[in-house]
């Protein structure tokens, strides 16, 4: 099973940096599916899932950004109270740590999508699967 590739970028916390990232992707026709910024004082880390990760990675790298690719899980979350609990509790009781997570809702979906970086992606996939949690495939995410 090939995992979803998230692009991560190191950016200084300065006006215009985010715009430069967005412009670089826009100029090469890469569409952002989901994104989050974690800020830590002078710098931040932008994480995003895009429709064409290899291309996104390449254009950002070539523009001089410090960029990396990370495997993440995208799981469907019921858009009801307790939807998040079901997922993170399954991981927690099975000893899997969530490094970070961010969620988004798609236009056509009744469900929210949760992007997760965990310390053991294969185990997370297995335990969530056993609980009947739907895990989005590469194609599903890239073609939303």
């Amino acid at each position: 099973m090939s995992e979803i590739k998230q692009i991560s970028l190191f950016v200084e916390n300065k006006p215009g940096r985010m715009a430069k990232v967005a412009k670089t992707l826009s100029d090469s026709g890469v569409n952002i599916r989901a994104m989050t910024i974690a800020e830590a004082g002078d710098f931040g880390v932008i994480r995003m899932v895009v429709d064409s990760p290899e291309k996104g990675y390449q254009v950002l790298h070539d523009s001089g950004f410090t960029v990396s690719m990370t495997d993440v899980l995208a799981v469907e979350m019921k858009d009801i109270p307790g939807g998040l609990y079901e997922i993170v509790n399954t991981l927690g009781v099975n000893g899997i740590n969530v490094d970070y997570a961010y969620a988004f809702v798609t236009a056509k979906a009744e469900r929210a999508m949760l992007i997760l970086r965990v310390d053991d992606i294969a185990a997370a996939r297995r335990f969530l699967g056993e609980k009947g949690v739907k895990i989005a495939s590469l194609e599903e995410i890239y073609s939303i």
Partner: protein
Amino acid sequence: MFGYWDPQLERMSAEDLHALQEDRLKAMVRFVYDHSSFYRKRFAEAGVEPGDIKTLEDVTKLPFTRKVDLRDNYPTGLFCLPKNLVVRYHVSSGTTGKPTVVGYTKGDIEAWSDSLARALTSIGLGSNDVIQVGYGYGLFTGGLGLHYGAERIGATVIPMSTGNTERQLELMQDLGSTAIACTPSYFLHIMEVAEKMGINIGKDTQLKVGIFGAEPWSDETRGRIEAGAGIKAYDIYGTSEISGPLFTECHCQNGIHVWSDLFLTEIIDPKTGEQVEDGERGELVFTTLNKWAMPLIRYRIGDITSMTHEVCECGRSHPRIMRLQGRTDDMIIVRGINVFPSQVESVLLRMPAVGPHYQILVDRDGPLDVMTVRVELTESGFSDKIGDLMALSKRISKELKGVLNIVAKIELVEPGTIPRYEGKAKRVIDTRKV
């Protein structure tokens, strides 16, 4: 392969060198006394006359000369010969104040070229070499100094000057440069540009030697350059007041040979002015022994280093000064502790997660000095977990504390955002209001 330019002189016995220096010192002291009202006044204030200098050791009776004396007597108040004998001026960049003017007779230029001819020969360069001079030509002494030295040994010179990095690489390939002379920070930049252009300096050029100076640099930078470009990197030393670039390490890479027939070199305690022992750190002091348009007596150059009089493995008997620790004037005092940028550099270069370019920012928060070290994160050092980046900052800070005994804030920045310099790098930004 590693010969001598002037074997007899370069391997002269300690006794003979001592006698030669003694004669030349006495003659020089008499000369400046007879030709300069500045020195006559200085000697009178110190209560010393040329006749008091009977041995080499008597040099300590002579008063020091400082950069401020050159400025106060701007432009040519320290010249000892009439202008018609002066064939060239160089003017210092004035990085630490008003510019200073140095004049040279034809003989002064000859002696300068000879000094470099010996140095270049000691690192294996000769008439078959193509030397690309990437120091600035013009008022700065680096370009023309190296140029004359390289021509003296019969090498082919490419007078590139600084800048135009892609052209530097193009001509390096097309004309087969075997050596390059520039600042170490500029060479690091050349290496970056080469990589972007898909040029492997080790394979695609004939470069074998780098002559790097005009700013303090560390053994770690040497390691990075030698491994990255597949060349030998040698330290060169000199400043405009004493002529320009004059001395280099020999192929043993164990200290810079300072020619005793041309200069009397002392290391002093900057506080007391007393000479220190071999191996002890202190301020460099030069007395010119064969430079006549603008001689200098006990000139305090402001650079910090140590010296050894042991005969080098290469057979040369002239003393060696060790890698420069920095200048008394680029030393920054943070919370009462002396900090040299070169110390910061040596720590950063041990860490592959960050690049070789850096800036030191010193500011004041209330009564307290705050030092920030700004450094570029490399792609290999990047983790998308904030915790890892915080840990990296902490690790750098801890390593710095180990060397400097001071806590510095670490600011990780994007690659390519710290200014690159073609001449002297400006590493320190001090915004403290004193």
